[in-house]
């Protein structure tokens, strides 16, 4: 019958279709070697997503290249190449008329006062308060982000208040808060706002703290370091493929950041979230510690945080405390002097021990200090200088 498929034709088509599906499947990686497939969740540029003109909370970008039409942001290793009308991976930068603008300047969506230990920073003026700000945006795509409601949004998509750099400094001073933290989302995505605020804060006698994923290029970081007093930078893993598949970034630029901060004399502490089945391999932690010791030395504290299911990474168990203890043991054994455990209230790994005499230097119960055995930055028992930035004893106030 004309137009009708015969059985033979049908079977032929069915066979061909199945083969095609299998080929496509193999091409997509369904049937290939699992180890060869590194899933890369790195972000992409938002084409034609920029507004027609800058808004009140815009400023021309600080570090970018331009050929008059296309611009390339030079702040972070994403180096977004934006044609007019495009928006960057971090969602904060746009190309309007051949100029790069930051859309996150003076419009923080999150403003809080936190204890410094919350960042976490255990060797930086313990128990002091810190004025913490964030705008929307992030250059990563972490599947477990606890601030995804601001980090994975454009500045125009969130509620914000108006707080230009001088206002931030004034607010902090008004409330007698000695430091400002650029935190919560990713401060590198609001680099211009952070830089100007930090400059004013330094002039006003306040300290500046960066809490970041460390995914920033060398030159803008060096400029920023002039005004930075402290930082907590995530070392999310020591494996590039994990960076790509869980965070949407790459490892090397983060390592470079640590080296730059070390050279520039910025006090920093490192944080590793121990994600079960990804960042819990002792062998990887050993390699990580070896790198830290070689490039940065033994003095910068390392925090291992307990993972809890969050955002899109909800099908994993919480990190076993035994794993955290094991990793802490490895790091101490390798030679890192200060290794802390986070998200484990009451654990001995939250205390500070002198690396020389092993006595408790700072006894902590949460954010409260129960013991403070430092005098002028030295161990009260053996006199060893303790790395960090120390003020007066918090117990004396």
């Amino acid at each position, binding site marked *: *019958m004309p137009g*009708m*498929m*015969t*059985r033979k034709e*049908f*079977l032929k088509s069915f066979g061909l279709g199945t083969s095609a599906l299998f080929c496509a499947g193999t091409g997509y*990686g*369904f049937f290939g070697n*699992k180890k060869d497939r590194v*899933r890369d*969740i790195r972000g992409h540029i938002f084409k034609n997503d920029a507004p027609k003109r800058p808004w009140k909370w815009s400023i021309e970008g600080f570090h970018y290249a331009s050929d008059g039409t296309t611009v390339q942001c030079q702040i972070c290793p994403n180096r977004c190449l934006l044609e007019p009308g495009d928006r960057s991976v971090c969602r904060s930068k746009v190309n309007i008329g051949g100029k790069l603008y930051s859309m996150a300047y003076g419009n923080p*969506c*999150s403003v*809080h*006062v*936190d*204890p410094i*230990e*919350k960042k976490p920073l255990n060797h930086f003026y313990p128990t002091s308060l810190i004025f913490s700000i*964030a705008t929307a945006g992030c250059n990563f795509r972490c*599947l477990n982000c*606890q*601030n*995804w*409601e*601001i980090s*994975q949004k454009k500045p125009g998509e*969130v*509620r914000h208040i108006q707080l230009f750099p001088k206002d931030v400094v004034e607010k902090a001073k008004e409330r007698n808060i000695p430091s400002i933290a650029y935190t*919560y989302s990713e401060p590198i995505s609001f680099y211009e706002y952070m830089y100007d605020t930090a400059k004013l804060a330094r002039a006003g006698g306040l300290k500046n703290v960066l809490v970041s994923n460390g995914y920033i290029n060398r030159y803008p970081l060096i400029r920023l370091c002039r005004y930075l007093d402290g930082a907590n930078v995530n070392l999310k893993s020591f494996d590039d493929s994990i960076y790509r*598949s*869980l965070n949407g970034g790459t490892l090397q630029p983060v390592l470079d950041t640590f080296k730059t901060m070390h050279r520039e004399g910025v006090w920093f502490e490192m944080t590793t979230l121990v*994600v*079960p*089945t*990804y960042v819990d391999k002792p062998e990887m932690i050993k390699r990580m510690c070896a790198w830290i010791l070689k490039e940065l030395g033994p003095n910068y504290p390392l925090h291992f945080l307990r993972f*809890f*299911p969050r*955002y*899109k*990474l*909800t*099908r*994993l*168990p*919480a990190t*076993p*405390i*035994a*794993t955290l203890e094991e990793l802490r043991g490895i790091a101490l054994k390798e030679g890192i002097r200060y290794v802390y455990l986070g*998200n*484990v*209230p*009451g654990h001995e790994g939250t205390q500070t021990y002198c690396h020389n005499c092993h006595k408790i230097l700072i006894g*902590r*119960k*949460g*954010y*409260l200090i129960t013991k403070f055995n430092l005098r002028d930055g030295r161990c009260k028992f053996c006199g060893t200088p303790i790395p960090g930035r120390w003020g007066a004893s918090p117990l004396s106030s």
Partner: protein
Amino acid sequence: MVSLRRLIIWSIIGTGISSVTTQLLTIREFLTQFHGNEITISLVLFSWLLLTGLGSLAAKTIKRPSLKIYTLLTLIIALWPLLQMIVIRGFREALFIHGSSPSFYTIFFYIVITVSPYCLLTGFILPYAQKVLNYNHQHFESGDLYITDNIGDILGGALFSFVLVYWFKPFPIIALTSAALILVALLLLLRSRSYILLLTTLVLISFFYSYALDRTFERHSLSTQYGDVIRYIESPYGRIVVTREGPQHTFWESGTPFYSDANIVNSEEKIHYPLCQLDRVENVLLVSGGLGETLAEISKYDPAHVDYVELDPYLTDVALELAVIRNAPFLEIKNIDGRRHMKMTERRYDAIIIDLPDPDTFQINRFFTREFFALAKKILKRDGVVSMGVEYSQNYLSEIRKKTLSTLYNTARLYFRNVIFLPGQEAYLICSDGELSLDIPARLRSKSIKTSYIEGFFYGNVTEDRIRKLKEGIDTNEAINTDFEPRLINIAFQEWFIKHGTSPRYFIVILLVLTIIYMVFLRRKEYVLFSTGLTTMGVEMLIIFAFQVIYGYIYLQIGAIVTAFLLGLLPGAMVGNTWRRRGASKLMLSEGLLLSLLVLFYVWVAYFRSELHPLFFLGFCFVFSFLCGFQFPVVASIIGEQSSPAAGCLAADLCGASVGTLVTGTILIPLWGIRYAVIFLILVKISSIIVTLFSGNKAV
């Protein structure tokens, strides 16, 4: 030698048994793979019905059917379910990032690719069977095919729901329900004297059974997803998996970890925020969340009695066995639905603590509704407290979270004078008619209660600033949440899409366009079947949802509901087959009856909502599907057997059913509630009545 006709009829019945069981197992599998909300059920049923419908349509193209191909297809259908189940479990890890929860589109894509071979085949084989029979001069009408298939479906549904589900895990169930089909395939091969093929088949079958009946193999199939599985239980209420990570135990339900050892922050916050508000704690009702340190924290108040309500006895049994629940003199574990317990208990409580995930299913939503707070108030002592936590980002209150918190706040305010939110790791809602304090450490100090987390962290995390900002975020104009208009589920679904940066819009548009294209080619009488398929599955979804609202669980009952629907189809089809003369008027009568049933359902939902015995619902399913079954042979007879109506009618029925499932389950009920979903189904049925009226007795 058994006659060909008889063998093929048995194979159709065998296909029915296998396909219904596989469908139910697949739904349950996906419920455990993707956190098991109603969208998942709808997507599986939608894909299943649509692909089966497409398979039926494909059979239309076959003019010269072959018995050998039929036998091979039968064999593939018998063996494929095991492979499908392994693929669903294993492919997940290959396709998605380990540990991540996928988005709507990836879930849909995953469902389609994993079920399509089986569904296309089962859809194809039924009309093909009829063609094989007719080609071999064995007269077999479309109505006969429909009835025979239904017999298999009912047998499969009943066998699964009332026997197998209680005794076996999925792989052995597949082994058992494929047996009939395997036997028929072997007999067909014997009959055709294809001995080499027979031998190959026997080898394949022995492989099939050695894997399907191997317990270790089944447990191993879950380990890529879960890790070191130490307990695996298919309970009537869901799949419980317990894993071990070193000395730590993690309990999983529906593929999501809900408990890992030593979660001190959670235990302290959920217990002390409400209990410290009370001067004296005598009786406590804990709904879920009794694992780990929870009971130890409660014991600090020296309570006289704690009722710990957990629906699933297997969960508490295994937790007791692993010492994750520690027995205490004050503790009474009750394995019953929490709402049911609240309705039945005569005890009066000082505190009711709800420890459930955010309300993203109807089952959980029932603990966040107006009806719940009303019930809670009844069983609370004077100035008693109710508390529950919902997810919340400490640093920014998004618009969608604002809606969740506001809805919950407004709902609780209907019954309690004082309602506060405490911004901890979760946002804790505390409700009471008595005074409530925000200074938790001070309250704990006054009671000399020691804590690990609250003492040291509270003042740094739950600052006045954060409490004020949270309070300012509450919008008192937000709607309230009820059992049947589940506002919080609607918000949870919206948030799910926001989280994954997707929107259901494209899907809805594509579905709409495809439906319109399909309807252009549809005969008028087939539209009646399309609309009946749509309303029948719509009603099935509504009953599933209503069941969840009233009884609180669905994992087990889903089999009974599906079986009740199948059970109605058979007598309906038989009656239709007998009374098909003067079909138009009888079709009209059945249309009127279907409409009346829908109106009846609407009246119950809108005005009564009383808790009926499950048999009423199952009876309703039966009558509805009886009428659905009745229409099939009547319509086929009106179209005329000479026009080969089987494939077209089956396709119309299945496509309608798939659209009904999806529209009702994923759009109407979550977005507008059960009432509006029924109104939509009523309108669809009215449209088909109009079509019937205008088409008279004409075939097209």
